[in-house]
């Protein structure tokens, strides 16, 4: 497997691929009078494209737009404030993915709360939260459930584990997101002109290739599911341009080793068992109906939102334009705060914090390209 991955980043393979992509992009420009525009939905794609230099190599030929696929970046400001307020409660242990620690709320971050003495723990393996609950029966352990279809199954696994062990002091603060509703939102509003999507590799492992058929049937737009290695990304972009040139609309699976046609059925069953669709607020977008998953009512005992009352006011307004970055309307460097008031050590918005954030990717890997 390592050998395959190695090959996928091999410059002897990737450099000619860049040339081929540029050639077909030129053809596209000749035919349509503009650069082809694609959205990489996934935050890890954004990071990979910037880190490997693909974005820089293609910037004059292909318009690559960062999409809404970074779980931290799309978390609504009010949710972030609520999670920080949740941590202020007595006798609580807040468990979270590391990405969330530095995300600024209206007045502080989870990291600030931790430094001030609140018990906030970064977990590498989320299921450890159940173990922590077991070891601390006098405290309430709350896991901050942020993520897309990739991480949602882990949350159901945690609930299953807590249920099996009869643990009563464990709950999840759910603020999860689904990919399909947000892609529909972007296409329905038509704010961004797109010729196709680079569809997320990890999410697609869960959902499967067939789950994107609505893009073709209802929107006549193509998608290519890709992994995160250089050659995979480049060949994905090539396939999207090729489809646009030939007038073909379809979903291609460029990640067949791990993405099947119907996805992971076992995981989908877990999700069906514990979760139900709910309205969810997206940063910079607002509420998208049925775009998140919440625990079914019969699992209210594991639902932190039902167990704890958290009072937060309207979020503080800043000049941060993360919302427009997420929607693909502007590049990170078009935000007036980018690289000045907003930097990784002093982020104003979540896109500058996350290891999958567009602004962080641009700051870390592409500043000199501007």
């Amino acid at each position, binding site marked *: 497997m390592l050998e395959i991955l190695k090959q996928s980043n091999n410059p002897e393979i990737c450099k000619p691929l860049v040339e081929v992509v540029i050639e077909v992009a030129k053809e596209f420009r000749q035919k349509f009078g503009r650069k082809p525009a694609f959205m990489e939905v996934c935050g890890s794609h954004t990071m990979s494209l910037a880190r490997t*230099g693909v974005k820089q190599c293609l910037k004059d030929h292909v318009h690559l737009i960062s999409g809404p696929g970074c779980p931290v970046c799309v978390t609504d400001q009010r949710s972030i404030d609520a999670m920080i307020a949740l941590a202020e409660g007595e006798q609580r242990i807040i468990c979270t993915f590391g990405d969330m620690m530095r995300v600024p709320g209206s007045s502080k971050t989870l990291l600030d709360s931790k430094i001030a003495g609140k018990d906030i723990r970064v977990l590498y393996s989320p299921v450890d939260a159940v173990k922590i609950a077991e070891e601390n029966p006098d405290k309430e352990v709350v896991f901050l459930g942020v993520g897309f279809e990739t991480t949602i199954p882990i949350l159901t696994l945690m609930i299953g584990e807590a249920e099996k062990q009869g643990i009563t002091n464990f709950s999840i603060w759910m603020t999860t997101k689904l990919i399909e509703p947000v892609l529909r939102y972007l296409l329905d509003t038509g704010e961004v002109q797109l010729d196709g999507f680079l569809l997320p590799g990890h999410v697609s492992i869960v959902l499967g290739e067939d789950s994107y058929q609505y893009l073709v049937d209802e929107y006549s737009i193509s998608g290519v599911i890709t992994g995160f290695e250089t050659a995979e990304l480049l060949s994905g972009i090539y396939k999207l341009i090729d489809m646009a040139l030939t007038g073909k609309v379809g979903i291609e699976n460029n990640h067949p080793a791990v993405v099947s046609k119907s996805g992971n059925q076992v995981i989908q069953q877990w999700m069906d068992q514990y979760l139900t669709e709910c309205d969810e607020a997206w940063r910079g977008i607002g509420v998208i109906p049925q775009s998140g998953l919440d625990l079914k009512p019969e699992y209210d005992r594991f639902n932190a939102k039902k167990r704890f009352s958290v009072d937060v006011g309207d979020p503080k307004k800043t000049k941060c334009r993360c919302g427009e970055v997420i929607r693909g309307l502007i590049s990170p460097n078009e935000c007036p705060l980018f690289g000045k008031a907003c930097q990784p050590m002093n982020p104003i918005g979540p896109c500058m914090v996350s290891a999958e954030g567009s602004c962080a990717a641009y700051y870390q890997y592409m500043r000199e390209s501007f």
Partner: protein
Amino acid sequence: MEKYISLAHGDGGELSHRLIKDVFIEAFGGENAALFDAAAITISTHKIAVTTDSFVIKPIFFPGGSIGKLAVAGTINDLAVSGAKPAFLTCGFVIEEGFLISDLKKIVLDMANEAKKTGVTIVAGDTKVVERGSADGVYINTTGIGIFEPNMDCSLEFEEGDAIIVSGTIGDHGIAVLAARGELGIITPITSDCASLNTMLSEVLKSTDSVRIMRDPTRGGLATTLVEIAEDFHLTMKINELDVPVKEEVHGVCDLLGFDPLYLANEGKAIIVVASCDKDKVVDILREFPEGRDAVVIGSIIGKGKGQLLVKTPLGSSRLLTRLSGTMFPRIC
């Protein structure tokens, strides 16, 4: 001998005395020096180097080393990359009540072995015990004293074309420690590169007078250390990402977590900037030592004035590298 550290071990009384005698002097020797508050050291007329560092690591034992080995090797390396020959070390311990004395002995033995291996004498120490919950096991501070030997220094006179060499694969320590914490649920064969580099670096300095600077890229990793050199000396440096040696396993874990190996900690690696004409000679010397067997040229100084570090990506484009921005947290998906 008691099984656990108690607060009384730090009160200066009988238990403190026994701890010093049975654990520290047993390992480090120097019973006579321990009779006094300060050690008397003859340094002659040499120019001396002094450095100090504190070591706080979890877990205290990890594949390839321990906090004890780290505390000695880390300080020795700080002296060695400065061009000084390490001679003496002092060590200060802050130990949490309840700490196992058997673990303390292992740590101290690691320190003694590393010191012996490198020809360094541990000449003074201090022990404090704090209440359970006030510390995390054990913290160690080491102060190192070294001697600058004639014609064995770094020139700091940089020129365009100077080569940047790294003495081996990067990120091993960062990943080994992360995996050893057990929080990742992954098993990796990676061991820490924790090692003293003084003998190897001394051979390099003996072989050429064109070494500009040496550094050990510990916290913040290769990128942060190179950015510091570039900024401190107003140099534009460029490294080739493909030439930077990274083990496949380290790459794998980094991909999983969203980490960049260029920013992972190392504890047994040196960066050497040397005149281009001597780069091959220096690489050959490094490769004669086990800790330098993967030494390689990774880039060069391409200009002066700007104070920036660039990296050439495998696709041929260049991007700017900056210092590590805070702790690296693993990504969500």
